[in-house]
Structures are given as structure tokens and as C-alpha cells.
């Protein structure tokens, strides 16, 4: 269906390009916005514009930031000898929430997936290598425990092995606070495989 207003039509079209938003949802959003006070819509529009104007990638770790270097990279109290390699900026947020990790990060910007046309050159791997001065002693590979994340970790191991750093991979198994009886069979059988000696 076409609207009598070209502006509405254009807004629907643009919104429906977003992930998880079909044409129907886009229409609902547009009519919601039409009913909102102009000031509210301006705030939303400005927030969206700021995304591209103010947010950039940290030139050291490639996390998203407004200041370069980001607040983590420029924090002298953090352990400069430890770098945790993750796929996306979201992963940094998750790890930061723990409050446990005091080292630095490196955001690859994805994982290797030839089917999606993503190879090592599309990820921030060379940039990681340039960071590895004498200060860094350990690299934690925290890519996702799936096929693509595993491949990326293996590739990094191959790349970093000659540098004689300590290389570690995050553990996988049963989530804390979960009951063993509720864990799915796959997680459980992998957890048994990866058991540790006490």
C-alpha cells in the first residue's frame, strides 16, 4: 500500500531496512512517531545523527568510543600486559560488566566466515600484531565457541605462536547458577570433555 504522503512512505521504507523490522513494524513505528510531540522526535533524530558524528572506533583496540584512545586503553591502572581478544564491541560490554577483567581488549569486528566473505583481512588482526610490544605477556582468545569463532581463534594461535606469548582460550561448560539437570546434552557432554583435575 502507498501513502498519500511521500515523506511517510520514505520513513517506512528506511525503517524497514533495519534488522528484525519488516514493513508492517515500520508502519507502526512511523505512525507512533507521527503522534509524538515534535520535540521527542527531534531528540531521537539527533541521537541517531550523533551515532555517526560522535561515535568512532578506538585507534588502539577498535572498540566503539567517543574519545580516542577509548577510556579503557587510556586507563593507566589497567593491566597493560594482558589483552583479551573478542569478536564484537558487545562482548566488551559483557566482559566489563563482570568487573573481574582488568586487562585491555582488542575488538576484531567479527569472526572468520568464508561463506559471508569474511577473511582475516576483513578483521583487525594485523592491528593486533602491531600492539604486541614487549609489554604484553598474555593474550586471551575470547571469540565465540562456535565454528566461526573457533576458526578465528585457531587462526590467531597460528599467527601469534611465533611471538612466544602466553596464549589462552576461555573455558566453556555449564553456566554458573544453573542446575546440571537443566543443561542441554551438548553443553553437558562438552563440559565433561573439558573437565579439570582437582
Amino acid at each position: 500500500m502507498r501513502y498519500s504522503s511521500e515523506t511517510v512512505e520514505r520513513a517506512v521504507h528506511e525503517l524497514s531496512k533495519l534488522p528484525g523490522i519488516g514493513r508492517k513494524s515500520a508502519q507502526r513505528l512511523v505512525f507512533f512517531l507521527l503522534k509524538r510531540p515534535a520535540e521527542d522526535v527531534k531528540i531521537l533524530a539527533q541521537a541517531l545523527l550523533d551515532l555517526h558524528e560522535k561515535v568512532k572506533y578506538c585507534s588502539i583496540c577498535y572498540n566503539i568510543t567517543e574519545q580516542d584512545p577509548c577510556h579503557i586503553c587510556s586507563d593507566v591502572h589497567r593491566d597493560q600486559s594482558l589483552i583479551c581478544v573478542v569478536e564484537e564491541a558487545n562482548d566488551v560490554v559483557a566482559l566489563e560488566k563482570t568487573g573481574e577483567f582488568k586487562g585491555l581488549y582488542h575488538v576484531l569486528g567479527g569472526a572468520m566466515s568464508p561463506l559471508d566473505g569474511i577473511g582475516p583481512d576483513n578483521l583487525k588482526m594485523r592491528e593486533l600484531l602491531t600492539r604486541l610490544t614487549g609489554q604484553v605477556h598474555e593474550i586471551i582468545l575470547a571469540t565465540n565457541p562456535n565454528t566461526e569463532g573457533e576458526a578465528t581463534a585457531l587462526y590467531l594461535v597460528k599467527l601469534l605462536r611465533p611471538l612466544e606469548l602466553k596464549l589462552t582460550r576461555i573455558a566453556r561448560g555449564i553456566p554458573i547458577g544453573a542446575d546440571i539437570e537443566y543443561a542441554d546434552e551438548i553443553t553437558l557432554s562438552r563440559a565433561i570433555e573439558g573437565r579439570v583435575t582437582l
Partner: protein
Amino acid sequence: MHLSSLCIDSFRNIEKQHFQFNSEKNYFFGDNAQGKTNLLEAIYLLCLCKSFRSAVDQEMIQMGKEEYKLNGRFMDAQNIEHEVLFHYGQREGKHISLDGKPIYQYSSLVGQFPVVILSVADYDITHGPPQQRRRFINILSSQCSPRYLSDLKEYERIVKQRNKVLGSIQSGKRYAESELEVWDEQLLQKGAAVIMFRHQIVVELNQLIQNYYRIIAWGSPDIFSVTYQPRIDILHPGDVVDQFRMALQRSHKLEKMRGMTLVGPHRDDFVFKIGERPLRNYGSRGEHKSALISLKAAEATLLRQRLQVSPLLLLDDLYAELDRIRGEKVMDIFSDGSQCFITATSFDYAALQTTQAINDQKTQFFVKQGIFTLKNNGS
């Protein structure tokens, strides 16, 4: 385990129908193309979330309708009822729920309600190309072990990723060579897990089929056997990864030329033999049928042994191509506590009236143009 009732709405040629099933044997008689196989397909869908015929949900909607619904109630070994709802609509897509809770990963349902199907398409297991044999082993193994299904799915994904890399190398992109190794390592680990499980399943299957074939093909001195033929030496199961690695290294050059993965379980085959003769090349139609029946009976027994649950048996057009004696004996090898759904033609019905087996059965349905009626035989 058994299916106690089933509601079908707008599925293929079945408009609306409610069934109460016998926990042992249910016969469905009718002429050709009346809807017998459609009923078995509906039951199979509830158990495995996919059809044994076409993979397209759209085709399963009754002509002129926009959606179909299946609602099955299973009784498990502890006599606890489970309800599976299967709904497919042109707009909404597929929705499956178990006991009122939506199922997002269909694979989590596999093995909960184990099922064995014997249908015309299964002739391809002993007669057709290797992929049909792999499919048979995959469905059986996946129902036995969720870990196998997960390893297999990951393995298939790795093969696709790796083929893409090999394709780049084939088209002259030399930088892709450095990527190959990381996919190789995962291919070896997951592939070896799949090979080892298949090896074990075939060993167990082999013991069972010999026994069943002896019963169904009585008087035949030949032994029916199956052997696993991976392209990798698995004589020493502990070294499967190493053997796989060597085979992969040997074929690297060829793989880069062809742009695809050439060794691994995605190219396995299984050989069925009667005596010393490979069944695929030399078997008569009747021999294929006897072999297939033994194989399906063995599949059911294997599931029962491993899961401690009796699978549902869906036996489509069971009596086709069986001679009189085999026809009379066939239900003996399937009467092992499993609930059976047997379809047969009106022609078979007449023949079966002379045997004792059929007259003992209480639950017989007659099918005409998608409408099933229960035979009232007064017992």
C-alpha cells in the same frame, strides 16, 4: 512410548480428523491415493519435525487452505502424557510446541519421540546412491545421540566454509591458503567424532540385521550384512583423527584443483551384502524388500536398546512385494512392544483375512478420499 491420539486439520487430503490409536497395532486399509501415507507423514512430522517425503511445508497444506495443524498426544514409558503441537501457516511459518512450551530448536525434539519409517522411498537405502544410506544412518544416529546430531551439523557447516576457501584457492586467490588450516583442524575433530559414532552404530546394526533377515528370508542360507566404508582407515579407532589428517593431506592438492572437500564422512558409504553379493548391484526386488524390513526392524531394536524407549513404527505399504509366507511372518519381527501403524491396500486386506494375525487386531481403519473410518468388528 506410544501415540494415544492425533488431531489433523487441513493436512494434505485430510480435512479434519481425530484419531484414538491402539497402543500396539493400527491397520489402515484403502485403495491407492486415498491418504494412508499422508497419515504416516503427519505422525512422522510430530516425531522429527520434518517429513520423509518432500521438505516443503507449503505442499503439505490442503488445497485451498492457508494452514495446517497437527496435535498429537504421546504416552511415555512412565505413562506421562506429552502434547506436541505442530502448526504451519503460509504467513506465520512453522510453530512447534511441546507441552505448551514453544520449541525454537527443532533438533531438541529429535530422539524424544523416536520413530522408524518404512516407505517406498526407503528402497533407495539399499538400491540408490550413497547419500540415501548416509541419510538413513544420520537419522538413526541423531535419534540415538543429540551429540551426534550437533557434531554432524557443525561438521556440515565446516565443510561449507572450507569449500568456500577451497573455491577461492581454485580461482587463483593464493592468500586463502593461509585460512585453510584452521578449517582443517575443526574438520578433523568433528569429522572423526561422526566417523566413530557411525562405526559403532554399524557394528550394532550388523548384529541385528543378520538375525532379522534369517527370520524373514527363512530357508535362505545367506547372511545379510552391512559394512561401513569410510574413506579413512579406522582399524584403530583411537587414531581416527590422525588417519583422517593423513588422508586429508594426501588429497590437499586435488582439493585445491577441484575447489571442494574430497575426504570425510560427507562422502562415506555403507555396503549391504547378501552372502558375498553386494545387494545394490545384484539383489532382486524381493530381496531388497526383505533386506529393508530386516534393516528397519534392526533400527527399531537399536533405538529401543539405546534409549530404553520403544520407537513408533510407521510401516507404509508393508505387504507390497512380499510372498505369502513372508507376508504372514513379517509382523512377527515387528511385534516387540513398539506401537505400529501399518498401511496396506484393499487387495492386501482381502489376502490378510485368511491369516490369524489380522483377525486378532482390534484397530483397523478404512480410508477413502482422506476420510478414515474405524472398522467395527464387534470385538
